[in-house]
């Protein structure tokens, strides 16, 4: 069976009703922990957006808020990254993964207390970590800036979540294990492992010199590939068939996609150091792994596309589907771009430029974050038993987010290419290059303003649905019946 639930099997109305009641019971059991993760994720999204705007403005206007050590660019920028990576993205991912696990294990969520404790600890860890960065206690290792005490709290919280996941999995109703569960399982193992190995080799007992850089970028890339990506794919594999009400196109493609991702993504990372002081074989291995990533990406893209075929019209009615499919499409684009960036000829140009930042946002925002928005739009009404009060806010959110991220990626990509081409030419003075990047960086700041406005709309929606404002709508379980989204 290749659909995320048993509802595709032919059944009488009685069985369908029983199924719906089952699902409603599962959703009710998830309410507290999942809403806790969602709510705090959205709060961090807002915090992260503020840091992002500050950093963006500082990059064109260095005197802006320059006299406060806590707000210097070199602190605000990692504060942004960590607030959005650990505060927003990870927290959202955990919330979505918990709900998916419960739905796919087909049993009401148990041991909610473990998850509530994990949520509290997780937020505490992120808050301490971000504050430490602002206070100047950062490790200054990209993606791993949190000092040991904060990292440790995150690790403990994560251990709780992993234990919970294993318990849930063992208590699942017998039957098919759906592809989303493989991804969630992978992610739940990979992340704590990756995080603890890397923290111990870089922070607790740091290894020598440039080996640190290798490990740093192995993490920097694998946290994307083995943590954020699997959760987003798990969500997409669930949402698309679920919302369309038909099974995923091919079971075999999804197996191929999963194992090839596990095999190749984990070998990525070294291409962040092309030409750097690391062994040549390692650079080559990473280039090969990057290019091989085309296999899982193309397989998954075909699988999603074939499932969507004939149903693209639904993108107009279902917000959850629209966000999710937007994310899925960007997954293909960002991955193909990533593979090309590992090639020496292009890497030489883009390596130290804003092009890479554009790529990072295409991945973490256009793909991952949009997918999470989609999932939250689907899941939240089921938890609070109330439909989203305002279609306008959702629409505003979608258009601000999509045009915002488009503007950001285009401006950083073009600005980065110009920067890279000029850096390659030693006759162009450095300050000329700086001057040429500024207009693109201004555009980026504007894109940040669009995204932030979108986040405010989303946060407002979320508060309104929690408060159950507006009038009660019929048939809360099937979002596709929602017609107020033209």
């Amino acid at each position, binding site marked *: 069976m290749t659909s995320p639930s048993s509802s595709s099997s032919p059944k009488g109305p009685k069985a369908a009703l029983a199924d719906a009641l089952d699902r409603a019971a599962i959703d009710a059991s998830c309410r507290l922990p999942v809403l806790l993760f969602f709510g705090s994720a959205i709060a961090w999204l807002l915090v992260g957006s503020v840091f992002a705007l500050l950093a963006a403005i500082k*990059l064109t206007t260095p*005197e802006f808020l*320059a*006299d*406060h*050590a806590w707000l210097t*660019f*070199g*602190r605000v*920028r*990692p504060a942004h990254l960590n607030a959005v990576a650990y505060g927003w993205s990870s927290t959202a991912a955990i919330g979505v993964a918990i709900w998916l696990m419960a739905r796919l294990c087909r049993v009401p969520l148990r041991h909610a207390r473990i998850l509530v404790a994990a949520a509290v600890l997780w937020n505490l860890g992120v808050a301490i970590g971000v504050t430490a960065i602002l206070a*100047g*206690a*950062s490790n*200054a*290792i*990209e993606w791993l800036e949190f000092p040991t005490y904060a990292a440790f709290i995150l690790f403990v919280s994560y251990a709780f979540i992993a234990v919970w996941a294993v318990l849930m999995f*063992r208590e699942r109703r017998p039957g*098919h*294990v759906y592809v989303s569960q493989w991804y969630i*399982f992978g992610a739940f*193992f*990979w992340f704590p492992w*990756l995080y603890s190995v890397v923290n111990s080799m870089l922070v607790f007992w*740091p*290894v020598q*010199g440039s*080996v*640190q*850089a*290798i*490990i*740093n970028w*192995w993490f920097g890339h*694998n946290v994307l590939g*083995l943590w954020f990506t699997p959760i987003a794919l798990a969500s997409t594999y669930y949402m698309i068939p679920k919302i369309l009400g038909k099974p995923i196109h091919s079971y075999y493609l999804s197996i191929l996609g999963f*194992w090839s991702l*596990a*095999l190749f993504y*984990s*070998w990525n*990372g*070294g291409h*962040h150091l092309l*030409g*750097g*002081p*690391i*062994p040549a074989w*390692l650079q080559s*291995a990473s280039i090969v792994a990057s290019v091989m990533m085309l296999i899982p990406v193309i397989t998954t893209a075909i699988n999603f596309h074939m499932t969507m075929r004939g149903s693209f019209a639904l993108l107009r009615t279902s917000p959850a589907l629209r966000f999710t499919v937007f994310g899925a499409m960007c997954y293909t684009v960002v991955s193909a771009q990533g593979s090309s960036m590992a090639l*020496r000829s292009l890497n030489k140009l883009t*390596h*130290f*430029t804003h092009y890479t*930042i554009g790529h990072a946002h295409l991945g973490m925002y256009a793909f991952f974050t949009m997918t999470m928005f989609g999932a939250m739009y689907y899941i939240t009404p089921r938890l609070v038993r109330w439909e989203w009060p305002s279609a306008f806010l959702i629409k505003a959110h979608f258009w601000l987010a999509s045009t915002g991220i488009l503007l950001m990626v285009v401006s950083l990509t073009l600005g980065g290419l110009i920067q890279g081409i000029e*850096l*390659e030419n030693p006759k162009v003075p450095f*300050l000329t290059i700086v001057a040429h990047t*500024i207009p693109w960086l201004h555009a980026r700041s504007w894109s940040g303003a669009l995204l932030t406005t979108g986040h405010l709309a989303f946060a407002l929606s979320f508060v309104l649905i929690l408060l159950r404002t507006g009038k009660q709508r019929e048939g809360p379980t099937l979002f596709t019946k929602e017609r107020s989204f033209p």
Partner: protein
Amino acid sequence: MNRGLTLFVGILATFTLAWAGLVLIPYLQFGRVTDYVSEETGQTLPPPMSGLAQRGHEVYAAEGCVYCHSQQVRGESQGSDLARGWGVRRTVARDYIGERPHFLGTMRTGPDLSNIGRRQSSVEWHHKHLYRPQSVSPGSVMPPFRFLYSLRKIVGEPSADALKLDGLDAPPPGWEVVPTPDAKALVAYLLSLDRSYPLPEAPTE
């Protein structure tokens, strides 16, 4: 795939394989590089960092200089780093053995600093630049680090290490701007950045 165990073993195996390949082997291969004592000069290379420079290394970490500056010089075929005068040779693993954390960096909003101590050896320039980068590099987007300096009333003799600031930056009469210990350490660190010594694996000719 219905077996939790198959899934688990596969997840474990793929990851362990990559960890061994990308972390363990590089670590075994060159995680214990030692410094090199030059036969000609008897000098230990790379030269060990002074305590003050080490402290400056920490300031560099806290202020996030690494988000705008790389410290790695790629070889000729890999970019124009050498042609830009950012070094006389590519940097190699041995250059970094004393650094925790590493500052290889991924971004060049500002120039590479692998050899800044050699390129710009004036303490005064560095202080002026850190105080307000635009005063010496018009059009720079580097942020000012004025919070690493203190404005102080001159009591008796002016301090020997007071900055010689003019124009916009000049303190009011009777006042002076002096570097904090952090600023001094940071500049000592910047001046220590000189990876132009020859190594067997990276000769300078």
